[in-house]
């Protein structure tokens, strides 16, 4: 569904992304992992149009979407959540998601109908599916961090996407919030049929839900493969553990830091 080939981006001489490759099949859940600064968020920015690549291509459903601006990418039904919480601070939870829905329905050029009367059902449905319906009238400033991250996802869902990119969805969440988030991601994949690309630092989550994993180090793709392949790959061990012989067993090392 999504094919990223040899994509690169340099900032002032620093190669943030260096010939990275990524392939995501329809219906899959793919994780991108790598040490801090490996370029994962930059990669996501390149895919979603926030940054323009210096070279390389992004194909979505066989259509070339390289270099499209973010709102055009969104129209292709690719949605995204951000690593640092990026919501509309002065608006309520409901309004945050509602804008997303209104945007999808191309209603944002409507100057005269009160928004309060539009898209209520669709917005409520999304809020229900992520578990935020009860808090719909709260301003985002009053939400817990975990709830805000879930709101991020809800806003991404507003665009009725086929493809969802989640940038560290559980970062900063408490344990209970984390497991709820994981259940949500599983539900999105299984019940709603979304294809999901995400990145995480928590290896347990990664190995728990991903079908395939892509490992990024210093801007480039080291390997993309199944969980087993990645676990026992020497290059990955080199990058993470500095050349140890340990084969990462599940339940073993939970968090990898570079």
């Amino acid at each position, binding site marked *: 569904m999504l094919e990223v080939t040899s994509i690169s981006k340099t900032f002032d001489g620093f190669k943030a992304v260096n010939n990275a490759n990524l392939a995501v099949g329809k219906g899959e859940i793919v994780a991108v992992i790598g040490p801090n600064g490996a370029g994962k968020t930059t990669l996501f920015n390149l895919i*979603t*149009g*926030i940054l323009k690549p210096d070279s390389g291509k992004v194909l979505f459903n066989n259509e070339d979407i390289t270099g499209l*601006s*973010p*709102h055009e990418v*969104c*129209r292709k039904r690719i*949605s*995204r959540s*951000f690593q640092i919480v*990026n*919501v*509309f*601070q*002065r*608006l309520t939870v409901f*309004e*945050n998601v*509602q*804008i*997303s829905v*209104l*945007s*999808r329905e191309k*209603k*944002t*050029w*409507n*100057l*005269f*109908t*009160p*928004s*309060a009367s*539009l898209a209520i059902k669709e917005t409520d449905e999304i809020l229900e599916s992520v578990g935020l319906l*009860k*808090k*719909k*009238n*709260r301003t985002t400033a009053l939400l817990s961090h975990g709830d805000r991250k879930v709101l991020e996802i809800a*806003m*991404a869902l*507003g*665009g009725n996407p086929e493809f969802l990119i989640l940038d560290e969805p559980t970062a900063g969440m408490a344990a209970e919030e984390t497991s709820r988030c994981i259940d949500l991601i599983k539900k999105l994949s299984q019940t709603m049929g979304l294809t999901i690309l995400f990145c995480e630092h928590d290896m347990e989550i990664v190995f728990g839900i991903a079908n395939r994993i892509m490992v990024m180090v210093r801007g480039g793709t080291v390997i993309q493969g199944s969980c087993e392949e990645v676990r026992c790959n020497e290059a990955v061990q080199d990058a993470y553990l500095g050349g140890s012989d340990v084969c990462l067993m599940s339940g073993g090392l939970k968090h990898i830091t570079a």
Partner: protein
Amino acid sequence: MSRKTLFWLGAGIIVLLLLPVFLPRFYVYLVSIILLYGLLATSLNLVLGYGGIFQFHHAVFYGVGAYGTTLMLTKTGLPPMLAFIVGPLVSAAFGLVLGIICIRLSKLYFGMLQISLGSLVWAIVYRWYSFTGGDDGIHGIPIPEMLSSPKSAYYFTLIITLVCLFVMWKIIQSPFGSALQGIRDNPVRSEMIGINVRMHQLLALVLAGFFAGVAGSLFVVVDNTVFPDMLFWTFSLEILIMCLLGGWFTFLGPMLGAAVIVALRTFVSTYTDYWALVLGIIMMLVIFFLPNGILGYVEEKFKRGFIEPEIEEQ
């Protein structure tokens, strides 16, 4: 909108309608000025408070609208009512042009470029004696008879201002308004949910320019004059002050700010020549103690005690 708010609004409008019956001419003139300044400040707030755009030189649109109307009235033989439409359209066009030029820049640079373009316009108006009257401006502008008395000018201003405020209110409540506020809060996020940020901001600038132009035309009706200082950057800063003083995340804040500033200025000027000093001190107090303006402060106070109407969680 709640019943209570509607009641107060209705009462306020009735008071405004009855004012000329009770007040002497000068005060009627003053309220007219307050109304149109309020309209002007609200139009600025449309892009500033609700859109997050650093519109540093809003006075340009006001002045262009005023000059546009004036030139139509004085230089052409066309029907006067046409002049009142052309003025705002010209300023809306200005909004579009300036918008297209400046919109690709981020925040402060947008403001700076707008200031330079605005200064260019001011310089041209200031020097083009034969066309715009230069630094003298144009006086004694012929206004159609039915609008020329202070009372009729007042009612005209009142009606137009109310209509424009209503329209702007509708716009803010609409999906476009929501999108605009989203852009204010987080332009990256907005792009990512499919909103073409630039286009939306451009439309907001055109609308703000239009309503500012309406305010300019109203000034021509009320004061029968037009002069280059209407386009000078210091006036832009005064409009900003009105928004800040009244509260720029609220809808009626700018109108309140305009009322306070005009009233204070008139009052203070009868006692002293040093209105600028007084205004400067007031501004400092507002910046330090009332950063959200008067209405912003009031809103905060009221919302503090509120318990959520929805179901509270454990």
